[in-house]
């Protein structure tokens, strides 16, 4: 940290003292670090009751920022963690609403339900709607191409899934547009006549499910994550005095990953910053990859950059990748701008190229190694063959490069799981960064095992199971694993539990077996005994307090502690509803949650800080890889399904094969919804203000998707420091997919360049 010597463009950012600034930064240009240094600078400039507010995208970035800023300011002999606040948008919204919940009709102890719980509630609403509208699918199915049996099958299995996805997107977007169900229900009759009957059905479906969903939430006195953001904005609008107080508290707002900002995020931050406030937005519009499934849109950052009074800075020097990789990434940008076969997506990238760092820079680019690039474009590369190709390559490379990092990046989780199966078979070490592992299940399981041992204190077997979950969680270490097994077996064979946990002077089970054990095993048994005795003593506490006590004894991760707290609340509710419940009943409840038989309101799946390990293969989605880097990177499945280009033969994941006219129903519904946010107060508005020709939104969605996938490919390429291998596949046997057009373009460019260099 002390070695940080800002480059010229970084110095421009660090010279900031106030006003609005927009910073666009290429991958690896040190934007996050520059922002942290700026934050630390500003902390010393503000009053002691103020904070620099830093808003970022994911929780892992929150911790990352905190660590960096703390390191920078800790030498000032001040309390750690003060003078600034790092929050995700949800965290910030929670802070805002939490102080004045009454303003938006929430009780002081309002509950935020997590995504799983909201999925449950929404599914109930969807099911109710489906039952009430059995004939709805006929408006949308490709009836000419389907036989009766197929139609029945689609109605039974595919249609409900489609409605679920559509409803989720509809509700999310409605909240982003600040449209309540009441407002939509009021406006629906006014616009219905301008639409086709199937369009009217589509929007009615969304509105009715939304209304039902919100009713359920209100009944439970709860809000979901999207409400939280909507309500935060409402709170700020409703109480100017409160807004003034927050403006005073947060005189500077620094926003990272601003390319993924949503409309509401921008509005909240704009309000907090005020007309003449201090707001720095940093991002890379070329890495905007969340548009399709969130309300994020890089347009907001781009428009901000163009606003009058905004100082614009570009961080274009990056020391991350070797020159060949930079060249390839830059070529993708240039090719898209000038040669992409679909003209409408040529603006997918900001015309911003990555520049290597100068020779005297502390972060010099790795040396040039053109052979580090492999674009595999063999024809007929089947899905299995691609997997084998990557696994073979890793098996050859990894043993020789134990001190290097390597990742295989896939467009979707499923592909990652397929690769992992193969890596397992080949005994190639890997770490998984795909769908988040279920902390909820694990946390519930740990607590269940401990509670079970407390409910049956005389059972040695239960005690042995509690021992297993008490042990440090490192199944990778065979020595520790063997020790855990060995000791657990010992405990399970203990003839009288009390002789181990509360031994009499003349009868201590541990003393009797000590001669047969290693000193480390004895130490573990002693330590576990202390913990188990403490738990047993705590068993007389009310169940929620018992859970909290156990959790604070066993867990260290904030996420686990927070989950345990939620479990404690759940069991507390049960205890209030069923006063006769005792430990045995609570254990069963936890077991159901641990087995995932009942959905539990855990936390939203959140990213955790990840440090790419050496000597192991990281298997990750390209989305999850954002912000990370590896020495060698494989990009898989770069075909025209995962990376379509708007060509006639491309297929799109959002367009269901059974829907007529290739319609993307979700996009169609969202476009109609957007018209309902228009100005209804103007009687002279043109008649076509609310009409949307069918299919128009589908076509636009295709283009948006093509653009976003181009940027995803760019993100994938720029994760590599030294070597990059890109492969494709033909998909499942019936698909006959093609290599993605951009891959073909990159391949052509690279071959030409190689041959030019060879000739020269």
């Amino acid at each position, binding site marked *: 940290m002390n070695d940080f010597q800002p480059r010229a463009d970084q110095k421009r950012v660090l010279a900031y003292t106030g006003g609005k600034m927009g910073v666009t930064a290429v991958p690896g240009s040190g934007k996050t670090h520059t922002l942290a240094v700026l934050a630390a600078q500003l902390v010393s400039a503000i009053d002691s009751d103020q904070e620099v507010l830093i808003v970022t995208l994911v929780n892992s970035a929150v911790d990352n920022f905190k660590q960096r800023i703390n390191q920078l300011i800790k030498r000032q002999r001040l309390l750690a963690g003060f003078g600034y606040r790092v929050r995700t948008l949800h965290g910030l919204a929670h802070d805002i609403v939490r102080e004045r919940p009454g303003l938006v009709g929430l*009780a002081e102890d309002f509950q935020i339900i997590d995504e799983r719980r909201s999925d449950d509630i929404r599914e109930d609403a969807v099911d109710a709607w489906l039952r009430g509208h059995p004939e709805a699918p006929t408006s949308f199915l490709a009836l000419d191409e389907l036989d009766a049996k197929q139609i029945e099958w689609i109605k039974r299995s595919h249609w409900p899934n489609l409605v679920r996805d559509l409803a989720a997107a509809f509700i999310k977007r409605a909240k982003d547009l600040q449209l309540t169900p009441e407002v939509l229900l009021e406006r629906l009759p006014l616009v219905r006549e301008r639409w086709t009957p199937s369009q009217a059905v589509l929007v009615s479906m969304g509105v009715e499910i939304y209304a039902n969903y919100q009713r359920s939430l209100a009944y439970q006195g709860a809000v979901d994550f999207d409400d939280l953001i909507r309500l935060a904005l409402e709170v700020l609008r409703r109480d100017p005095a409160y807004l003034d107080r927050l403006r005073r508290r947060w005189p500077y707002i620094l926003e990272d990953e601003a390319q993924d900002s949503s409309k509401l995020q921008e509005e909240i931050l704009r309000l907090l910053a005020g007309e003449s406030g201090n707001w720095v937005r940093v991002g890379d519009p070329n890495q905007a990859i969340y548009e399709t499934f969130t309300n994020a849109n890089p347009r907001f950052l781009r428009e901000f950059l163009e606003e009058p009074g905004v100082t614009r800075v570009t961080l274009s020097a990056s020391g991350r990748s070797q020159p060949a990789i930079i060249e390839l990434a830059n070529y993708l940008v240039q090719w898209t701008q000038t040669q992409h076969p679909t003209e409408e997506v040529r603006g997918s990238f900001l015309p911003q190229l990555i520049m290597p760092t100068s020779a005297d820079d502390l972060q010099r680019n790795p040396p040039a190694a053109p052979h580090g690039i492999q674009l595999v474009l063999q024809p007929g590369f089947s899905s299995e063959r691609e997997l084998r190709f990557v696994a073979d390559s890793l098996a050859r490379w990894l043993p020789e490069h134990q001190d290097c990092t390597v990742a295989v990046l896939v467009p979707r989780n499923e592909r990652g799981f397929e690769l992992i199966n193969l890596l397992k078979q080949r005994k190639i070490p890997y770490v998984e960064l795909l769908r988040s592992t279920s902390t909820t299940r694990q946390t519930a399981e740990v607590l269940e095992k401990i509670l079970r041992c407390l409910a049956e204190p005389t059972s040695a077997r239960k005690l042995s199971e509690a021992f297993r979950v008490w042990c440090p969680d490192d199944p990778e270490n065979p020595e520790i694993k063997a020790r855990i097994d060995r000791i657990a077996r010992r405990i399970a064979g203990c003839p009288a539990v*009390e002789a181990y946990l509360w031994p009499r002077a003349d009868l201590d089970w541990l003393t009797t077996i000590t001669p047969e054990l290693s000193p480390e095993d004895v130490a573990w048994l002693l330590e576990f005994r202390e913990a188990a005795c403490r738990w047993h003593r705590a068993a007389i506490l009310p169940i929620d307090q018992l859970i909290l006590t156990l959790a604070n004894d066993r867990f260290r991760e904030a996420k686990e*502690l927070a989950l345990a707290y939620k479990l404690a609340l759940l069991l507390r509710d049960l205890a209030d509803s069923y006063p006769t419940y005792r430990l045995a009943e609570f254990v069963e409840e936890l077991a159901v949650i641990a087995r995932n038989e009942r959905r539990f309101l855990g936390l939203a799946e959140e990213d955790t800080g990840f440090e790419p390990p050496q000597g192991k293969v990281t298997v990750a989605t390209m989305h999850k890889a954002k912000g990370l880097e590896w020495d060698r990177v494989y990009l898989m499945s770069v075909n025209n399904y995962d990376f379509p280009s708007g060509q006639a033969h491309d297929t799109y994941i959002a367009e269901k094969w059974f829907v007529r006219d290739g319609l993307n129903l979700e996009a169609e519904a969202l476009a109609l919804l957007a018209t309902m946010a228009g100005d209804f107060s103007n009687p002279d508005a043109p008649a076509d203000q609310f009409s949307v020709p069918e299919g128009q939104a589908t076509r636009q969605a295709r283009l948006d998707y093509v653009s976003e996938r181009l940027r995803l490919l760019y993100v994938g390429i720029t994760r590599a420091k030294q070597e990059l291998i890109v492969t494709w596949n033909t998909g499942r046997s019936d698909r006959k997919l093609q290599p993605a057009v951009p891959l073909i373009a990159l391949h052509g460019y690279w071959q030409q360049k190689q041959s030019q260099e060879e000739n020269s």
Partner: protein
Amino acid sequence: MSVDIISAPHTGNHTIFLAGPPGCGKTTVAVQRLYHLLNKGVPAEQILILVPQRTLAAPYYQVLRQAGFPAGGNVDISTIGGLARRTLDLFWPLVAATAGFAHPDQRPCFLTLETAQYYMDRTVEPFIARGAFDGLTISRSRLVSQIIDNLNKAAAVGFPLDEIASRLKAAWAGESARLAVFDQVQEVALAFRRLCLAENLLDWSLQIHLFWHQLLPLPQFRRYLLGGYRHLIVDNTEEDIPATHDLLRIWLPLCESALLIYDTEGGYRIFLGADPKGALALADLCREHVVQSASYVTSAGMEALGLTLARYFLQDIPRLKTRVDPLQVLEPQGQRFHPQMLEWVSETVASLVMEEGIPPGQIAILSPFLSDALRFSLIERLQRYGIQVHTHRPSRELREEPPIRCLLTLAKLAHPSWRRPPPPTDVAHALMLAIADLDPVRAHLLTEIVYRVRDGQLVLSPFYQIVPSTQERISYLLGGRYDELWRWLQAYINRRDGPERLDLFLSRLFGELLSQVGFGFHRDLDAGALAAKLIESIRKFLQAFSSLNWQGTRALASVSGSSAEQPVSTGTLRTGMDVGLEYVDMVERGILAAQHISSWLGPAENAVLLVPAYTFLMMNQPVTIQFWLDAGSRAWFERIYQPLTHPYVLRRDWPGDQLWTDEEETRAREEFLGRLILGLTRRCRQRIYLVYSDLNERGYEQRGPLLQAVQRTLVESKKS
């Protein structure tokens, strides 16, 4: 100056208003004044010591019990509530008819907190059944206590009972849906009052109301009260309610002498109706106005710390006169995780006690809230160092206290006729707490063998009938203790006279067995205190019912809408024992809160005190070392969740047409925290450890205003 006050004239309406911060010796002066009055021949019966709550009278009780105290009659020490109750009892025939009671010819029944909660719970019941309070997330006990709170505030402040809803609604700035809830609160409050009038029940609010509106206008009562007590000593006027101040306004011009004491930094009981402004206004009615400022408790550094921190929250804090570093007495200590913070606190306490020789009783660990998990974890850790801990948590549900659950489980075992056999887990836990050194494993083993429930009937068998191998596992020593308990219970079950009253049963169980060597309550200070409290609570409950008998049952019937021919609970209220079962049910339903501040028993010299910060203030006992736990928690700054009442809006000085907005809320919170800081520092002699963890016990980041104020102090100290 002190000498002048003590020996001031005691005739000719000599009234003194003595103001000063905590620790400046105000109460000491008042005690000396009491001595002086008695030594000058003032009859003890003519002296009244008036305090806002009984615990604040502790210094006077101590003096009155001392051997060297002048002989003679009794000095009365009372609260306004105590005074009202006593005089209403005396003058009942004069007020009963005019006050609207349905049975003026019969004696009144003064409700205790427990019985008031009981009747309010029953009053609320039919309203809830009709859908009232839907959509409000609140426990039943809080619902009940907040409606009682509204009644009490109306009486304490002196506004008509039917104005509760209009006052709350006029100030409500939130969503309109809540307005209907306030109307429901009003309906319940009025129904409760109707019940009281119909059945001669007098809760605290009605006592105060009648005292004012029925008794005080009576000339004969005025002669009795104002003519009887000629000398007043009124302590902690700032913590008292407007009704007390109004009484003093009448009384001060008529008495021979009066000493009113006002803590300039007090007013902590605002949630209970305290009116510091009203108290300060009394100074104008006093002949002398004395201000003391020097503290005998705090050092200059501690005073500087209090003023420096409080300055961030309070407007009128004076600048420091001398250049004293406020940080010299403060030691901030941050940890990443909550358990690490507790570990650090335990180690530091141990080091203070063992290495610096500070008596445990001179150390207070204070937190905004004291959860079971926090209490358990700290006690566990401190006991590892052999350090005893004394805790006190007001307004806690009785059912959540393990010693209470133990006693009630044993009561169920002793009363098979209740047909409430406890589950085996409860029995195991009860045995574990009741029998010294019985660990949880052996307690369960023992329960598995000796306890059976057949056809709803419980069977408890003796240890000596167990097979020898299991006896060996449990140990003969512990088995012997169990047998002692078993024999005691059997003897009770087989009593020829049948079951005793529940309070008597528990008194005997505690006295004859549990408090003895070899049993669990012998060394457990908190458990003993809780047992005493439980017994006292049951006793009052039973007494109230014994004076009621038929009244209570009919009252319940009328409130709940049942017909008189089918009264509710008739069968359960006939004997003390049945009422005892009613009490147990109430505890198990979570209706009854545990100790209230008035019942606090006082600190133990050999134990570290672990209490909520606010409770510590109300105990008014300075210590040498304080730990401010969870300093990052916003709870230091926030009011408890009270959706059905409002401590500020229901005050006398609240303008009726004003909304309670963010500005007011923030100011109130700042005022609260500022006063808390001043109060705590005024009660600390040497050092404050400010401890916090980045993540609280729930895993959430915390960095509340208290911690921010400390940070600001650090920053400013660095700049200067």
